[in-house]
């Protein structure tokens, strides 16, 4: 399905066909991973300062909430849906967490924030899986509902985030190792284990590929769909909490910009919007690429209005190049044969 049987000269054929690499190729992650590597090198050339402790920390605080939102979006896309309420869920768990921090101890506040995301996910999931409604309609509606509730909980930025919490989410774990990246890595590894190494995870991939077939195999397709929405809600809530930590405030509008970016990151990651195909590492690196475009332009001295144009060009070229490459490859092979 990818530009598969082509071997790029540099990588050996053995590496190209190794099982783990095969999975990356099948999930469409080769293009976004390579794109990130190229982008990273360009970034460091334009702005070598990125590799200082301060800039690494700000860059990861910028990127990690987007990466978590993108992972949440990926899970919904895997089951063949799309989540318009991602930004709203993020704001909601953000304000619930910030409000809870005023009066509750941190673990309870964390639970409240995550629980808020979980409830939103279960609400969407129940309507999609058991109400058999289209995901885009359900999540569009819930985006408005959740958005209103967030403003009811907290109508202007505030809340009780402490500096200690800032250090725990957005400080440094070790010199040169931002703690935000550490938390992202833990979430990513747990999610990877769940999706690739449990039957439920494979069911989630299967439901997106063909829900009827999963049902015909005697499996609970609706349950897998509901689980995917719940899981997505939890991960997006973690994104909202990380965002609260890095900005030291709760804000009912803080999640809104993440909706389109999360969809863009999933598209950049090469996931199939009809479901069943998408990679975690590809999504995270795609989110990193898109999240850092603005910074790069700032350091390159280009007007930041161009940020979205550049991001759009990256998405189109990364998604389009494999298609173009495959077409050229087939044409060349047809002529040669």
């Amino acid at each position: 399905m990818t530009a598969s049987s082509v071997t790029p000269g540099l990588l050996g054929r053995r590496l190209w066909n190794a099982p783990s690499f095969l999975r990356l190729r099948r999930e469409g992650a080769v293009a976004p991973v390579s794109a990130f590597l190229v982008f990273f090198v360009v970034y460091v050339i334009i702005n070598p300062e990125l590799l200082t402790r301060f800039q690494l920390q700000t860059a990861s605080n910028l990127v990690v909430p987007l990466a978590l939102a993108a992972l949440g979006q990926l899970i919904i896309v895997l089951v063949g849906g799309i989540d318009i309420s991602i930004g709203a869920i993020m704001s909601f768990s953000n304000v619930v967490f910030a409000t809870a921090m005023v009066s509750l101890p941190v673990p309870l506040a964390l639970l409240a924030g995550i629980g808020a995301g979980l409830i939103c996910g279960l609400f969407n999931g129940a309507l999609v899986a058991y109400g058999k409604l289209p995901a885009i309609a359900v999540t569009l509606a819930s985006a408005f509902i959740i958005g209103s509730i967030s403003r009811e909980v907290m109508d202007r930025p505030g809340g009780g985030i402490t500096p200690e919490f800032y250090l725990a989410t957005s400080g440094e774990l070790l010199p040169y190792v931002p703690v935000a990246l550490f938390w992202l890595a833990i979430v990513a590894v747990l999610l990877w284990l769940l999706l690739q190494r449990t039957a439920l995870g494979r069911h989630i991939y299967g439901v997106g590929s063909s829900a009827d077939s999963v049902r015909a195999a005697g499996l609970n397709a609706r349950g897998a769909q509901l689980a995917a929405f719940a899981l997505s809600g939890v991960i997006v809530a973690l994104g909202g909490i990380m965002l609260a930590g890095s900005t030291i405030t709760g804000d009912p509008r803080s999640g809104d910009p993440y909706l389109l970016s999360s969809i863009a990151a999933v598209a950049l990651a090469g996931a199939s919007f009809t479901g069943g195909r998408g990679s975690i590492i590809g999504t995270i690196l795609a989110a990193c690429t898109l999240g850092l475009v603005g910074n790069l332009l700032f350091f390159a001295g280009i007007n930041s209005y161009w940020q979205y144009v550049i991001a759009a060009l990256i998405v189109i070229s990364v998604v389009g190049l494999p298609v173009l490459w495959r077409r050229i490859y087939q044409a060349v092979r047809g002529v040669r044969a």
Partner: protein
Amino acid sequence: MSIPQQGGAVAQAAAPPAPPEALLVVRGLVKHYGPVRAVEDVSFSCQAGEVHALVGENGAGKSTVAKMLAGAVSPTAGSIGFGGVELGSGSIRDSRQAGVTCAFQELALVPEWTVAENLSLPDGAPLRGFSQKKATRAARALLDRLELEHIDPSVPVYSLSLADRQLVEIARAIAADPQLLILDEASSALAPPGVEWLFRRIRELTARGTAVVYVSHRLSELAEIADRGTVLRDGKVAGEFRRGAWTDDQLISLMAGREASRHFPESPPTPAADAPPVLEVKNLVSPGIDGVDLTVRPGEILGVGGLQGHGQAELLRALYGAAPAVADHWHLGGHRIKRLTPVRAVRLGAGYVPEDRKREGLALQMSVGENLLSPWLKAFGLGGRPLLGSQSSWISGVLRSLSVRTRGPLERAGALSGGNQQKLVFGRWTDRDRRLVLLHDPTRGIDVRAKQELYDAIVRLSGLGVAVIWFSTEVEELVHVCHRVVVLYRGKIADELEGERLTADAVVGAAVGVKGRR
């Protein structure tokens, strides 16, 4: 085949009382979909170690019965007794746990899952660990045990051919070690060796005491494998038969409810050999095709035979321009061709009936009339009802000449039965000044009556001077209807059979690489 015996098939509506030792006892099964009565009072029984066939035309209700047995559909009324347990809860999981598995007609494999995942995931709870390595190893062992060494368990199912997918689907049903195995048109995409493989597996299972419910259209298969059978017509039991006590004609008339004396129409007269060829191609090369020469004259029916995956599908796609192809010399309808696209092929007088009617052939959500007109729609022309109105005489002519059973040109194409859908895909090319029509196994998985109607339509088309290239997995069709048959083997023409040499044995022989058998 069978021993002809007058009155051997017992044509009676009421089933005899089930013997007490029967493993599966179906009584008074009824299924209504709204006002549509799909199954009406069906009763039969099946012993352990027995192969019980369910036959009938499409829409006769046999797939619905099979689905109720498998738990995919819950019955409106009636009972399914299975070894003393009552099934029919409408849960596939319950049926599987009771020991009933089913290979579905509409393939129930998840395309993005690997073969190993498809084989291993259906068993067990969702909350448990899953290891690709272990699953692949287990799948490898299973496939080896079932003589399917050629299937790689680590590839995703979407990359397999239709026949291999069907083999995996059957393997999955067998792997659960069922007490009752339901095979719903399980052989529809299999070539003769695949069918033999299936029969070996069925015999292994029945020797262990597993009962098999075998749903099929292919009468020759029934003669070989079925111990007993039930004929369904319009959702009711039309009759029963047992091994050796029936003939094809009896069964067909039971299924169709009328006397159907022969399977195949008379071959049309052999076309004039001096007419300029419609299609002439030398050394055609395309992915899967390795140097094929073909010449087809007006009014000729050229059969394409061979085992699945030896380049037949690729050949048809290349000739229609749907796959990239080059040739040393290529003429279609008097025009020289360097590169072909489907649009150009249609303009030069070609038509194509693709392999998968649901995916490639039809827009299931659109109307019958729009589907018939789809190659003839103009970007800036009329659409919808005005278009159907202006074309109504052609549409009704096609629907009538192919006897498509539909409520009219405005009905949704997805609501038709398989055979009638296939007629739509075929019908769009009739009466439209075609010079060449390419058919990819048009009779796959459709009932006997629809098949005969399609044969008649193909012969009628060739009588009008249209050249037909027809790939079929059923050797009998090639032998009886075609003027000439080319058999492909590994992307090349292994043999060209005509006149005296055109026999079923010769086609099968050439398909497995044995040349010159008679």
